[in-house]
């Protein structure tokens, strides 16, 4: 059978950079084709070429779709023939209903008057197909990210999709939602719909993909056929980074000291609903030089716990005690928490971590401006020195420290956020999803930095949804579910199974 899509010799140049260099991609009908590569390898650019975001003529090479040479001038043209992209950042309108979103721009109408009966009926069918049990009139803002993802897919289905492109669809989904999504893709495959799956989660890819194309630095490295060759994660990583990554986590010999942070009977209520307890009677400790993990599903209350400790940045009706070095610590405001020696690196570095319009220097010193000023006047020499210092130490790849952070890659942005918090001289670092959306190579560097911080005698509390990461990095892991700690494992006893079992068992007790 002829390929449904063949991209031949695609070259795309931006002023100053060759983003794609002679890239080839061939997708067979009814297959799941995974596209992997580090951030900046050219995956998204390639998909923008395919969908017409970069119109015909702005790139070199040819696109054959269903055997015909295609010259898409915009997204409407590619959607018209059945190529639908679902972007990482979902394109749904929060305050419109599911049905309104699905038919947005494509309303079932006569003379401009929308036929709501038909819209709702079709929405119900579509939701059934994607396995989403929700009322079509429910507002998008009231359903979780996982369900929103499904609505996006339902929207794609409403447009008679033949080739579905998913850009990191599971990046913000829990394991359960991810599995549901992947089995949906397998279902589509049976119906003859092809998909291109862009993902950093290699375990998922090895589960569902028929073929894997690996991009590196804007060129095609290789295409692996999953049915004829043995595929494992290390094999893919090797292709992505061009070297063997035998050790995905840098080695470290823990030097654990006395108790540094002690949190006792910590409770916090939802920031809007005062009667909803989201953090329930949590007790934990972090010792000097120790990396402690908090495992759990999305929405289990991990971020809420961390932020409520960090100067009540989240929630209301907070109670409990925090002790640092055996003494009661005042963490009632963010400033006091910082003074007490706590730093919190958010899970969302773009929205909550950085001032993207500002440069590296200004972001680095933001949380400790008094550290570079006398009597409220900033000493620019000193500030520059501090920022350059961290840039070297953290190996932030940029043109100097005057570069705006918006132009940095995810990994380098995260290093700037880490620099900002290290400059406050924290004793405890709470890292919330420190490697989310960061490519494999940069992840390793972040891990190395975390290890070094622990070796300096600081305590690290690490929240992550990627269990292998916690298992690879932590000395001790707490398991959180529905606002409670439901298990605690030393590194030696922890495994994906024990953690999942702790979560499941806590559910059964209800």
């Amino acid at each position, binding site marked *: 059978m002829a390929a449904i899509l063949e991209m031949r010799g695609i070259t795309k140049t931006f002023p*100053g950079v060759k983003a794609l260099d002679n890239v080839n991609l061939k997708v067979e009908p009814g297959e799941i084709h995974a596209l992997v590569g580090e951030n900046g390898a050219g995956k998204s650019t390639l998909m923008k070429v395919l969908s017409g975001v970069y119109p015909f003529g702005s790139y070199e090479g040819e696109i054959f779709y269903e055997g015909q040479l295609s010259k898409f001038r915009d997204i409407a043209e590619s959607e018209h023939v059945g190529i639908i992209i679902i972007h990482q950042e979902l394109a749904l309108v929060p305050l419109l209903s599911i049905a309104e979103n699905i038919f947005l721009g494509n309303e079932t109408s006569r003379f401009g008057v929308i036929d709501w009966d038909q819209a709702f009926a079709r929405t119900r069918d579509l939701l059934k197909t994607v396995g989403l049990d929700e009322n079509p009139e429910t507002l998008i803002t009231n359903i979780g990210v996982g369900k929103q993802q499904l609505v996006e897919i339902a929207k794609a289905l409403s447009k008679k999709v033949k080739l579905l492109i998913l850009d990191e669809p599971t990046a913000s989904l829990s394991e359960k939602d991810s599995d549901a999504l992947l089995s949906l893709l397998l279902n589509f495959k049976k119906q003859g719909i092809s998909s291109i799956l862009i993902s950093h989660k290699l375990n998922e890819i090895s589960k569902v993909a028929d073929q894997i194309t690996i991009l590196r630095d804007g060129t095609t490295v290789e295409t692996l056929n999953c049915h004829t060759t043995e595929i494992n994660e290390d094999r893919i990583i090797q292709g992505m980074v061009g070297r063997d990554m035998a050790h995905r986590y840098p080695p470290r010999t823990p030097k654990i000291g006395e108790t540094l942070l002690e949190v006792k009977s910590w409770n916090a209520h939802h920031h809007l609903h005062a009667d909803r307890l989201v953090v329930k009677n949590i007790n934990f400790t972090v010792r000097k030089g120790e990396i402690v993990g908090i495992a759990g599903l999305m929405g289990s209350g991990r971020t809420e716990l961390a932020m409520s400790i960090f100067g009540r940045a989240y929630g209301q009706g907070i109670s409990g005690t925090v002790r640092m070095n055996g003494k009661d610590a005042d963490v009632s405001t963010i400033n006091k928490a910082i003074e007490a020696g706590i730093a919190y690196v958010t899970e969302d570095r773009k929205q909550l971590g950085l*001032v993207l319009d500002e440069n590296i220097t200004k972001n680095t010193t*933001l949380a400790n*401006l008094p550290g570079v000023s006398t009597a409220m006047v900033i000493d620019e020499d000193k500030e520059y020195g501090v920022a350059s210092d961290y840039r070297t130490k953290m190996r932030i790849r940029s043109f*100097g420290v005057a570069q705006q952070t918006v132009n940095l890659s995810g990994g380098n942005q995260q290093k700037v956020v880490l620099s900002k918090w290290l400059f406050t001289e924290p004793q405890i670092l709470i890292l919330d999803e420190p490697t989310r959306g960061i490519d494999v190579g940069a992840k390793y560097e972040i891990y190395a930095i975390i290890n070094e911080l622990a070796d300096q005698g600081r305590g690290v509390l690490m929240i992550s949804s990627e269990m292998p990461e916690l298992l690879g990095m932590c000395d001790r892991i707490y398991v959180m579910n529905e606002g409670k700690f439901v298990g605690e494992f030393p590194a030696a006893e922890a495994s994906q199974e024990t953690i999942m079992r702790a979560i499941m068992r806590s559910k059964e007790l209800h």
Partner: protein
Amino acid sequence: MSRITAEEGLKPATGVPVAKTDPDAPGWRGLLKKGNFRDYGLMIALVLIMLFFEYTTHGVLFQPLNLTNLILQNSYVVVMALGMLLVIVAGHIDLSIGSLVGFVGALAAVLMVNYNVNYALATIMCLAVGGLIGASQGYFIAYLKIPSFIVTLAGMLVFRGLTLAVLQGASVGPFPDFFQLLSKGFIPKLNGFDLSLPIAAVLWLILVGTGWRRLSNQRKHGVVAESVGSFLIRNGVIGLVLFGFAFQMTQYRGLPNVLIIMFVLIMLYRFVTNKTTIGRRIYALGGNVKAAKLSGIKTERLTFLTFVNMGVLAGLAGMIFAARLNTATPKGGVGFELDVIAACFIGGASAAGGVGKVTGAVIGAFIIGVMNNGMSIMGIGIDYQQVIKGLVLLAAVCLDVYNKNKA
């Protein structure tokens, strides 16, 4: 701001076509591109607009009397633009300042004329009232999280109404002589010697000195700063303009007092925005309020303070304006907020917050002022004056957005 050197680190891919506008290209184009295009562009635009009106008014614009008027007419706009810039950078807007100008002017008149309060005490009271009004609006905006647009729109109505109430619908004046000096006074001559030129020299030296320090800092820190040549040319031109201006002023009555107030305030706010922690925090707050808050910045208090500051400056502007007219009228300050906001946006401030410069806002204020003045001399009606001002504002912001997208 975003221009950077490639001293190390990433190198662009090889075999890549060179961008059309090479920042290192010689000549004017390169000069413009290399430093801060925005600043030069604005300054050049101001000069071109002045030359244009000098031509179309047959030389009236640069006459000593008219130059003096130009300064006096614009002083309150400039003063308020300083406060408005901070408000806009913090991500807010203040529509109430026109009414505030009217109200504080009215208050000053009633205190001094009707109640014979000492002018110094009355001035302090008026500044305090301005600050209090700013604080009350700031409280709603910062702590109760009511959008600034709505709070200050309400303030605009409330204080216009109170102006009418305080004045009981009539104009009140004249002011005591000493108070009038705020607007109508000039730097006194020293034994008959006009101090305009020496003062201009001092101001110029301050400008060159601070500019040079900043330039050498930028070079040290790896920011692509302008070349020494362009720095010299730029400051040479500024010097010429400054001395030419001062010379013209000596032909009339010398430098107005209010010009000195303005200059001191401009330098103060430049310092605060560029060099102090509070300035830096306002920019961070406007750039990303959540990130700023999580970095331990007291965002509410900072927002509150920017409105207090705006209130005090609007109070000062109200008194300067009243002193200039020598009466407080119920219509005093109507529409001023529009000129002030326009000045900030022409000067490159972003409506989204986090971006904007004091120098830009001041030049923006003068662009508006020169246009007002020039068009009035030309005899263009108030109808088309507004049309033209509106179009200039739109064009300036379009140019800004276009430049940003190209970068």
